[in-house]
């Protein structure tokens, strides 16, 4: 999939900030552009879509140059083959849901449909809504219709502009389930713009952090978030789900060189590669492996650093197991009681961890 390269080198001035981005990404699966509001991420997305013109620079996708200010090349948005889902869905209010979908399928390039209308309607779970008018739909329903409409235009690149921001908790979960399957089911590389770290963790394979209009490294979401110094209070760890025990509702997961037993909270994860999100506050430290303890997940590891935590009483202990870093949030008092030192071998007790993406 490495032929899905997006090459960007642009500068664009706006009143609040200057966007200056140079990147060359292999777009594979879902890539998040992650940053606080006002960091220019939506402008970046709109420039990729062709809704904004950069002051100078070039944008190439696969073998096509979409924009090159030096050569005077400009490909209009409707010729770029992009699928956009807007923050507010931007449905056509004068058409029914079915009319909205037909608008897209009628204009899709003939002949190279990789999936059918029925596949899309089923995946987005909108069968019941087809005869409705957009004005009668809830926020979550509007986003699912927008998603289906976008897919039916058979895009070669998907751009999602904070698609979950207008939704409440339950609807977010439902839409995340749909979005997570997109790259796998439809095979289209996706760029997601988001300021919400949970969204990024759950959806994105790769992350491009953006701060005040500038990029700040690009890489696997796990590496970027762990290395970014964002005080996020958790670590993402590569993990493999080995088996599911339906009687106890637990999954056996291989990670950090040990076997975890983790409760399944909402959806049963499929067997295979996943990511484990370990919160600092769910990790305790013991000098040796304890026995007779309800915490079942014991990770032999090494203390890498000890730094101030989120409150005066707390410190964050950075730990390393199997070349994978993670952290524990414990009290300063405990550190001095245990006489923890850098380089010391300890056992991390992981009370819980959630299985993502």
């Amino acid at each position, binding site marked *: 999939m490495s032929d899905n390269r997006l090459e960007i080198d642009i500068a664009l001035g706006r009143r609040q900030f200057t966007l200056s981005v140079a990147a060359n990404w292999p777009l594979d699966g879902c890539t998040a552009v992650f940053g606080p509001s006002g960091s220019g991420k939506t402008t970046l997305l709109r420039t990729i*879509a*062709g*809704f904004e013109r950069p002051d100078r620079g070039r944008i190439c996708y696969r073998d096509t140059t979409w924009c090159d200010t030096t050569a005077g090349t400009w490909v*209009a*948005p*409707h*010729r770029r*083959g*992009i*699928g*956009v889902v*807007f923050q*507010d869905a*931007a*449905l*056509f*209010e*004068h058409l029914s849901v079915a009319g909205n979908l037909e*608008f*897209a399928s009628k*204009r*899709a*390039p003939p002949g190279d449909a990789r999936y059918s209308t029925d596949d899309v309607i089923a995946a987005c779970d909108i069968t019941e809504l087809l005869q409705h008018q957009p*004005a009668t739909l809830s926020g979550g329903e509007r986003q699912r219709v*927008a998603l289906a*409409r*976008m897919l039916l*235009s058979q*895009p070669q690149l998907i*751009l999602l502009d904070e698609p979950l921001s207008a939704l409440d908790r339950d609807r977010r979960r439902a839409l995340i389930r749909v979005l997570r399957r997109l790259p796998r089911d439809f095979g289209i590389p996706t760029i997601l713009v988001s300021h919400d770290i949970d969204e990024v963790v759950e959806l994105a394979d790769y992350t491009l952090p953006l701060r005040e209009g500038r990029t700040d490294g690009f890489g696997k979401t796990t590496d970027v978030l762990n290395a970014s110094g964002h005080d996020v209070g958790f670590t993402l760890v590569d993990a493999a789900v080995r088996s599911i025990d339906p009687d106890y509702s637990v999954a056996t997961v291989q990670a950090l060189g040990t076997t975890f037993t983790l409760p399944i909270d909402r959806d049963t994860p499929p067997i295979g590669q996943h990511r484990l999100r370990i919160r600092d506050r769910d990790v305790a430290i013991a000098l040796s492996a304890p026995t007779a303890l309800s915490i079942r997940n014991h990770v032999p590891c090494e203390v890498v650093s000890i730094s101030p935590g989120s409150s005066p009483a707390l410190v964050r202990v950075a730990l390393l197991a199997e070349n994978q870093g993670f952290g524990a949030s414990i009290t300063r008092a405990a550190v001095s009681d245990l006489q923890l030192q850098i380089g010391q071998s300890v056992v991390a007790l992981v009370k819980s961890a959630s299985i993502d993406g």
Partner: protein
Amino acid sequence: MSGPDISALLLTGWLALVTTLVLLIVGTPLAWWLARTSSRWRPAIEAMVALPLVLPPTVLGFYLLLLFNPTAPIGAAWLWLSGDTLTFSFAGLVVASCMYSLPFMVQPLTSAFTALSRGPVEAAASLRATPLDTFFSVVVPLSKRGFLTAAVLTFAHTLGEFGVVLMVGGNLPERTRVVSIAIYEHVETLAYTEAHTLSLILLLTSFVVLTVVYASNRSQAVRVG
């Protein structure tokens, strides 16, 4: 009602209809440009469009009369092309009415286009619709109230036109004599009964047309909300 009065009524209706159609074609792209452009020429163009609202019709009519004169370039070109003069002809009346009623077409359309959010337009582009396709399949249906208002105001305004017509068209029966001029003539000759009939017809027509617009705007607003 006399034959000349009936032909004045028909001529007026026909003039209003033709003017509305011509202005729909000319005014729509102009309004779209005004709604979207960031050109520094926009204020000047907007002012030109709004001029007929403030100028006395006789001023506009006077300038048009000079332009349409067969010795002036525009008048001469028209004479050469069509074999008829622009002054004191139906064609001249249509051109003059279009100038005079331009703001009534362009202003409601511009505000309808400005009110349209960029979301649906950009969504259409992202779904591979060309700009022209987007305009007809998204912008026009979403702005249909603006179109209705603009067309009806233009039509009704042209029905009641007097000064410009008198200057450019004069008062030639079946050629340029519209209702407003026929009424004026009846009053001049103290034929009040005829003046009453025509005035009442014009009053009622305008009232009915405007009521239909406001009623349809209202019922749509209720349905949307």
